[in-house]
């Protein structure tokens, strides 16, 4: 039988070749897994397809993806999303890069609604990418902001990967959620600081709004403020429906859809055609995202059935390294795993293998869990292979290439790596707040 190391190398090589030739990512991954699988396992492996299809299409957690994408499309197509940003421009338009800053704030709010990466990035992208590009923002800045902001979906509670981590390592979800708040705040502040500084240094990246010849009348100003406030109200309503216990984070996407339609009617922008067009675009995006998830899951399920997890587990045993080196090695492994598997499987696979080792070395498990979340955020957006990259490509206009996306993320990945390192160096950033707020 083929060794798992050799198999991994072969699979890796096939990915590189098919990606280089520009093959559709999801279908190619499925094809590679079936081809290599047939040669190493036989046609019995084909049976991995039905179970994988069922577990992807019947996942209530992934249902957030279509609902939030549809909400995002309705908001853009009805102009409600624009209203929000117009109002913010009126408020802080004199700051260079102000729109990108508003986008980061909106992304944080979306992060507080959704618990998975896909929904975070595709919603933020639907609403906020177009306004930035239309105002002449540097496309790399615009893409990077969406990618970095959308990734906050798993760092700002509620977060599905955190719930999975807490359950598989028997830790408190509440502590994870609260422990993530300071790292999340640091990330948001650093993102904003980066936007401000980089726009100062290179003003072309974020053109100032042209001062209109005629100053807006008080009435126009009032209307802009009112529209902005109303659209903000939608976000507050969706968040409220989660906090008040009306809907789960997944279901709240549907509240957002209804809310967007109600607002469109209020703004007199409601047309059945708009709803249908938004539906068309959303359905296309959902299908694209889901075929990637299906193909990638078929691929990783094959790899897991062949025992890649045992390779990782075996590798991490008896390392004989100093404790902090072990932690750093774990981070490296997870970043590499981000090359082939999604956020949920990284947690399922690594949390139980790594956490007991980290705890036995004297580290706090909640701290280690937050490191894992910060790491996953980076892993899914580092080239060449990352779900966040593909989601962003899906949502971006056709003239944005994958290379644009790869190039756009560099400063933001470095920034998130920086957050990861300071959280690694100062565990109190995670442990202090839960200790203050929760006894024992």
């Amino acid at each position, binding site marked *: 039988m083929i060794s798992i190391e050799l198999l991994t190398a072969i699979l890796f090589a096939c990915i590189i070749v098919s*990606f*280089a*030739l*520009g*093959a*559709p*990512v*999801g*279908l*190619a991954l*499925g*094809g*590679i897994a*079936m*081809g290599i699988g047939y040669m190493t396992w036989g046609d019995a492996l084909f049976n991995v*397809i*039905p179970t994988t*299809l069922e577990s992807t*299409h*019947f*996942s*209530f957690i*992934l*249902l957030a993806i*279509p*609902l939030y994408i*549809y909400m995002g499309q309705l908001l853009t197509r009805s102009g409600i999303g624009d209203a929000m940003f117009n109002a913010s421009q009126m408020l802080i338009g004199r700051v260079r890069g102000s729109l990108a800053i508003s986008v980061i704030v909106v992304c944080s709010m979306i992060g507080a609604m959704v618990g998975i990466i896909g929904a975070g990035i595709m919603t933020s992208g639907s609403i906020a990418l177009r306004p930035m*590009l*239309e105002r002449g923002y540097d*496309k790399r800045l615009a893409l990077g902001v969406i990618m970095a902001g959308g990734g906050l979906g798993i760092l700002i509670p509620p977060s599905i990967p955190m719930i999975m981590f807490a359950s598989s390592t028997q830790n408190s979800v509440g502590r994870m959620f609260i422990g993530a708040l300071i790292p999340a705040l640091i990330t948001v502040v650093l993102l904003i600081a980066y936007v401000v500084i980089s726009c100062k240094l290179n003003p072309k990246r974020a053109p100032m709004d042209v001062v209109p010849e005629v100053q807006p009348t008080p009435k126009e100003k009032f209307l802009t403020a009112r529209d902005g406030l109303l659209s903000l109200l939608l976000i507050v309503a969706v968040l409220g429906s989660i906090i008040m216990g*009306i*809907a789960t984070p997944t*279901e709240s*996407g*549907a*509240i957002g*859809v*209804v809310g967007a339609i109600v607002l469109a009617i209020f703004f007199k922008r409601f047309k059945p055609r708009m*709803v249908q067009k*938004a*539906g*068309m*675009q*959303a*359905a*296309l*995006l*959902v*299908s*694209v995202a889901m*075929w990637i998830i*299906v193909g990638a899951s078929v691929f990783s399920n094959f790899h897991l059935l062949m025992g890649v997890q045992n390779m990782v587990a075996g590798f991490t045993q008896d390392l004989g390294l100093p404790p902090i080196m072990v932690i750093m090695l774990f981070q490296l492994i997870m970043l590499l795993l981000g090359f082939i598997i999604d956020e949920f499987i990284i947690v399922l696979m690594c949390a139980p293998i790594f956490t007991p080792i980290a705890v036995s070395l004297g580290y706090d498990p909640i701290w280690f869990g937050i490191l894992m979340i910060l790491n996953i955020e980076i892993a899914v957006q580092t080239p*060449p292979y990352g779900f966040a990259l*593909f989601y962003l*490509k*899906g949502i971006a*206009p056709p003239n944005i*290439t*994958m*290379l644009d996306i790869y190039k756009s993320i560099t400063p933001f990945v470095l920034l998130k790596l920086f957050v990861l390192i300071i959280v690694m160096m100062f565990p109190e950033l995670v442990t202090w707040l839960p200790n203050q707020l929760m006894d024992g």
Partner: protein
Amino acid sequence: MIMIMTAIRRYCLGVHALVAFIGNSVSYLMPVLAFVVAFEVFSRYILDSPTIWAYDTSLFIFGYIAALGGAYAQQQRAHINVDILYNKVSARTKSIFNLFSFALAMFFMVIVCKMSIGKFEEALEFNYRRQSEWAPHMHHYWLMMAVASVLLILQLSSDWIDALHQAITGKPLIEKPLENESEEEGIAP
């Protein structure tokens, strides 16, 4: 020869029309999906009586949208690819790359189709249902999966023929069909 070419061209145009029709129809499921989930929230929170059908119904609709939209996404070239090298090469080299990519994708979809038909027959034989209290039938899902795979295979085969034609003659088989609305609205920064 000309007759064969005409037949092939007709085939490709026919596939194009069929896939576009299904793709458009699927979009009407989006508002239905949102409505079903919103209704469950309404029924549970306002009427205090959670439904037993909304959970599975929403998942079925989700699966239908996700699977059936695949062929249309291929037609629109909306499936994500890593286009770094791809964008640098000539149209003719691109079509040679496509011959490989689309064949790989078709290979995968043929297996998906075969397995889905198998599951459909099994679902009929053993009366498979969802494990919930409502316990709706599973057979239609597998039938839909088989149809979705066939549509994707048809679209891929049509695109493969087109790529072959371009690789040999340097020209596309069919003059580029009208770009769809989604693209004409794309933003050019």
